């Protein structure tokens, strides 16, 4: 979490920078090399990397444990889809009210919790309660398709229309790739700014941070709102990628748990943790699905069981996550491990 490291390990820093550039270059040409199935896996991995970054911002940096992030995905997805289907507003424009709505809901949860200094597990339960409340609410709103699902018109287009978010799968892949890269740069900048240092102070010791004159209520609210807005953006893109929305599928607690896996496995409060975690879990999960399919074993539940065992092993033996451990093995300096 430190700032710039000056001379020590400058060489390893350069190598790491080159490795990072190569990594993103490889991802940029990936759609030309892989088939439809692998591309769909990569889309899911990048989705979890991006949402994981958003969640990590709130938990890893500002120290606020949310277990209801599926709520923001769902708000983004349902709001943009409803604006498109009912009013013909394209998602590029609809994204603004959708993200604003998610940030507003995040702010009201924050207002409720932070005003009374509800933290830790209580806050986590409050976020679950809001997500579950919304799941049941949407299940009863006919205008949003209720339990029968909300569908977007499917157009198998090969041309790319970014305004209406209509296009082939590789368009969605590139959108998530750009979002993940942009989030990486943005979070790095934030964490080098006053705001980032305030968050870390709040995470480490709220009372001390307040005594040092930080308005902890304001900065926790900012963390929740940015995280909610970012997460909603991912929801908007997935809504137009999958073209169907079901309340339990979107808001269910298993969705919220999925979101937190990548950043925890990769490394809470680290810049690259969510991306590393998303790739490790994605490869593990999909690899396992293929192996089990070939072995003819029914896969329901097995993937999540393995994820949970993996999560357990990480929190038990490597609570800092994979990335700090890996970065130390690769001889990267502290600036890169954080």
């Amino acid at each position: 979490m430190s700032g710039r490291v000056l001379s020590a390990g400058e060489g390893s820093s350069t190598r790491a920078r080159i490795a990072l550039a190569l990594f993103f270059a490889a991802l940029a040409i990936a759609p030309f090399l892989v088939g439809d199935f692998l591309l769909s896996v990569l889309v899911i991995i990048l989705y979890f990397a991006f949402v994981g970054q958003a969640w990590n911002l709130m938990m890893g940096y500002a120290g606020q444990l949310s277990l209801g992030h599926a709520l923001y995905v769902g708000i983004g997805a349902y709001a943009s889809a409803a604006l498109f289907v009912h009013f013909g507003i394209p998602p590029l424009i609809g994204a603004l009210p959708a993200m604003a709505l998610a940030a507003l809901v995040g702010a009201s949860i924050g207002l409720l919790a932070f005003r009374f200094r509800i933290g830790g597990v209580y806050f986590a339960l409050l976020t679950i309660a809001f997500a579950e409340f919304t799941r049941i609410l949407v299940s009863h709103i006919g205008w949003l398709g209720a339990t029968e699902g909300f569908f977007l018109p499917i157009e198998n287009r090969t041309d790319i229309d970014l305004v209406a978010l209509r296009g082939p799968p590789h368009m969605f892949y590139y959108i998530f790739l750009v979002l993940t890269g942009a989030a990486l740069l943005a979070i790095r900048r934030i964490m080098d700014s006053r705001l980032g240092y305030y968050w870390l102070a709040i995470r480490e010791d709220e009372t001390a941070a307040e005594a040092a004159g930080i308005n902890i209520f304001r900065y926790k609210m900012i963390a929740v709102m940015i995280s909610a807005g970012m997460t909603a953006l991912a929801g908007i893109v997935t809504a137009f990628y999958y073209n169907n929305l079901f309340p339990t599928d979107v808001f269910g607690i298993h969705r919220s748990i999925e979101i937190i896996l990548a950043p925890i496995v990769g490394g809470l409060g680290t810049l690259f943790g969510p991306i590393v975690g998303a790739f490790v879990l994605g490869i593990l999960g999909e690899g396992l699905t293929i192996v089990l399919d070939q072995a003819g074993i029914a896969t329901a539940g097995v993937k999540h069981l393995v994820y949970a065992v993996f999560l357990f092993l990480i929190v038990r033996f490597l609570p800092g996550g994979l990335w700090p451990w890996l970065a130390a093995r690769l001889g990267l300096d502290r600036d890169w491990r954080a």
Partner: protein
Amino acid sequence: MTWDIVANILIGGVLTGLVYALMALGLSVIFGVIRVVNFAHGEMTALAMYAAVLLFEGGRLDPVLSIPLVAGGLFVLGYIMQRRLVEPFIGRPEHEQFILLLSVAVILTNGLLIAFGPDARGILTDYSFDSYAFGPIIVDKTRVIAAAGALVSALGLLAFFRYSRTGKAIRACSDNLLGARVVGLNVPRLYGLTFGLGAAAVGIAGCLLALVIDVLPPLGPELTLLAFIIVIVGGLGSMTGALLGGILIGMSEAIAGLLFTPSMKSMLSFALLILVLALRPQGLFGKRAL
């Protein structure tokens, strides 16, 4: 809508609420003493329900009679969980404890899914359709048995903590950990017993719940949330709060089923949780500030 219908539904809610209360009491005991939030609480309840269903299907054992077996099994499971899994996490950051128990919860839910499949399993005893009539009030026999069993068990647990030497020792750990260590109490063992007792309460609640509702794997997370709502509404760490909270949530579910549709019943519970956290975060019966 006549008054006897309302009374019938409310009484049904109270009876089911008592079973919820016993389950929540287990959560409250574990949190109150060990200060660890058992996020796998509902999943353990679902496990107990499956055990009751299997004993009924395999051994024709009535769920009430399978209570000693299931509660004993859950006690051992709880004791081992505390000593093997949770103990190394005491003193580690709160979110790591939470993630630990979350992973246990997901392992249990998906383990149950793999073992028993996604379909609901229930118990149909020869008295499942019997009921008692008190004037215009008609109550199911299964609900009465479940509620009575839950109430007796809950009172037994409260009496254990109040009067027995071990119970007093456990309360001493929760009141003043340092003092408990100074007077020579074996804290790790007492913590193991506490988790075991909380799990045993879950085992009893699971057997009784299996009489009243069907079990399927996703019920686990739902019951975890329900237990949390009860405990927070009642006041975390307060045993009587957990009991009254259970009754209150049972009634609110019944009222929601009456006013809206049954599928919206847990929405009212969540609304109640949000309301309590907003207006009275220490819970309805809890003491101010922990």
